[in-house]
């Protein structure tokens, strides 16, 4: 049991307001860790610290045992793939341009890029003909799939998704949840996922980390949250997902 990513005593404030209180968190290799919690609980800030987009005020971040610093972050990020809520696709590049951006920058030859794209498109159930389309010509679900292809392009050790499905309609969302789970299982990738949807967290995650006001309230499985809530807040958070018990346990 190794930790791919380790956050030790990290904290961060914005303009004097603490977003994350000092906390320690490990992300085990090959598993999906879900940061779950209400808006403003600090889960997105925590995710950004993992990628080096936000620098912790205290503590340190270790990725594959190496200290993540502003100097090392750009190189380390090529071993990570990030999918943002809106997809974060560059509107001036077509699908291929977006997905192959870094590979081209690193000097991959075109045959290798083609081959990799073909595998990934099939993996996320996209047809080859989307390659020449621009983000503006894609549906929301297609955009998230392309964004996932871009994140997986360099075979990263870690994939991070920040509310990646949050803006999608329920049907597209559940389809993508299926595809994400299948993809991550097949690739054995380590995943960190941020969501405020406990159902999604339960479906995709091996370990759930429930955050509130920048602090970890409980770590465990969805079942732990339901059966053995750490405090009254966990109970309330579980109960707030109204339809959840009937749907997932029905």
């Amino acid at each position, binding site marked *: 049991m190794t930790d791919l990513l380790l956050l030790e005593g990290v904290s961060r404030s914005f303009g004097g307001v603490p977003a994350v209180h000092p906390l320690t968190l490990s992300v085990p290799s090959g598993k999906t860790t879900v940061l779950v919690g209400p808006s403003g609980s600090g889960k997105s800030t925590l995710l*950004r610290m993992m*990628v080096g*987009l936000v620098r912790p005020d205290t503590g340190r971040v270790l990725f594959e045992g190496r200290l993540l610093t502003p100097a090392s972050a*750009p*190189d*380390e*990020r*090529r071993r*990570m793939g*990030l999918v*943002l*809520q*809106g997809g*974060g*696709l*560059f*509107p*001036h*590049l*077509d699908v291929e341009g977006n997905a192959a*951006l*870094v590979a081209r*920058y690193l000097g991959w030859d075109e045959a290798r890029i083609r081959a990799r794209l073909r595998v990934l498109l099939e993996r996320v159930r996209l047809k080859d003909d989307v390659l020449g389309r*621009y*983000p*503006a*010509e894609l549906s*929301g679900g297609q955009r998230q799939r392309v964004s996932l292809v*871009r994140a997986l392009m360099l075979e990263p050790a870690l994939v991070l998704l920040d509310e990646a499905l949050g803006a999608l309609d329920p049907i597209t969302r559940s389809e993508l949840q299926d595809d994400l789970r299948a993809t991550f299982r097949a690739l054995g990738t380590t995943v960190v996922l941020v969501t405020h949807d406990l159902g999604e967290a339960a479906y995709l995650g091996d370990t759930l980390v429930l955050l509130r006001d920048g602090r970890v309230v409980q770590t465990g499985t969805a079942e732990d949250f339901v059966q053995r809530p750490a405090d009254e807040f966990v109970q309330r958070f579980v109960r707030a997902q109204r339809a959840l018990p009937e749907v997932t346990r029905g």
Partner: protein
Amino acid sequence: MSGLHALALGLLFAAPVRVGSKVFTESVVLGEVATRALLASSIPAVHRRELGGTRILWDALERGDLDVYPEYTGTLAQEIFAAQVPATLEALGPALAARGVRIAALLGFSNTYALGMKEATAEHLGIRTISDLARHPELRFAFSNEFLDRGDGWRALQRAYGLPQGNVRGMDHDLAYRGLATGAFEVTDLYSTDAEVKELDLRLLKDDKQHFPDYQALLLLREAAATPEVVAALSRLQGRITQRDMVAMNARAKVDRVPEATIAADFLRARGIDSAPPQLPGRARRMLGYLKDHLVLVGVSLLGAVLFGLPLGVFAARRPRLGQGVLAAVGVLQTLPSLALLVLMIPFLGIGAKPAIAALFLYGLLPVVRNTHAGLTGISGELREAAEALGLSPRARLWRIELPLASPSILAGIQTSAVICVGTATLGALVGAGGFGQPILTGIRLDNTGLLLEGAVPAALLALAVQGGFELVGRFVVPRGLRLTGPDET
């Protein structure tokens, strides 16, 4: 040493003698006369017409941007030597020599400053002398801007005669005549050889306190350009132009709208100095010349504005604090009146295209810098994060992501800059840069609408063409993906 000297003289002789003139008709006619007199002696010469006021011409002469220009003794004494030297030839000769300038010819007439009123008004109010004006404080005055500012101008005159009038404004000399004709004011300064004196039936008020110094017309010649041939050619004009000749030539230019080149050629032919007919380029040739000048002014300054403005805009976006300073600085440049900016360049760059290009360059910076900055800082937080999270180097992010995303804004900035430059470049003619401003300047001076439109219409069309050209360029430069309107892409 003597070999070098000969070589230097040879080079001087090969380069055309540059004759300048101020931005009023008599000066242009005299510049034309001097140029043609040189050409008649087989000396290459060019006339840089309508360059501005005394300071600009004199500075250009001292700097070596010009070799010859027509001037007046009184102006030299008052303006150049700040009344430290009397307006006599005996005093001016050595003073000029000390500055490397000589008098190549005394032309034979004087053109003194005078105050003028419409004959009927003056008669009605019983005004004959400048002293008489003191009895009519209600009279409105309008003076040429140069007269308002110069040493022997309005302030000195007001003191000398104790004039009480407070309603005094400055305007272009030629516009002042129009204002006088329409009754916008009653008194203006004028030159005693002006064609309008006769044309508008003006009364010249007697300078009863002999305030205005003598203004004998002469040609100044830079010593370094004073080869024996040039000296000989210009000395043929010595004493050849009478007061009557000058008024007649001014009237032909202003009233009959005869081109100065023709007037000068006719005059020199009548005096037996030059027999060649005037060579006036046809309208098409003329327009092509203006267009070429104009495009060079706009093209070079715009290129500079882009080459400097783009990096400045990137810098401003990368370093928000220093960036505010950069934006403020280029913003201040933009607030300077373009004419002032143009004239401010002359001490550093002389006359001609250079100061105009420098001024246009500074003027064109703001839109490029501001739009580059706006384009880059306007990139959404998510795209910025996505770019950073991909692990591209800052340079790669700039070139592959940020600049393409900002390209519509940057292009719009360059377009604005280009259109501003096309319009502002018309002022370049004031410092001898040519372009479509030249016919506009001449048109205003001669009150010739046709000539004015010859510059104004093409300049406006050029601005439209530039505008359209950039729309076209946008189709190639702005990435296709940015021209699509997506469902929730903004």
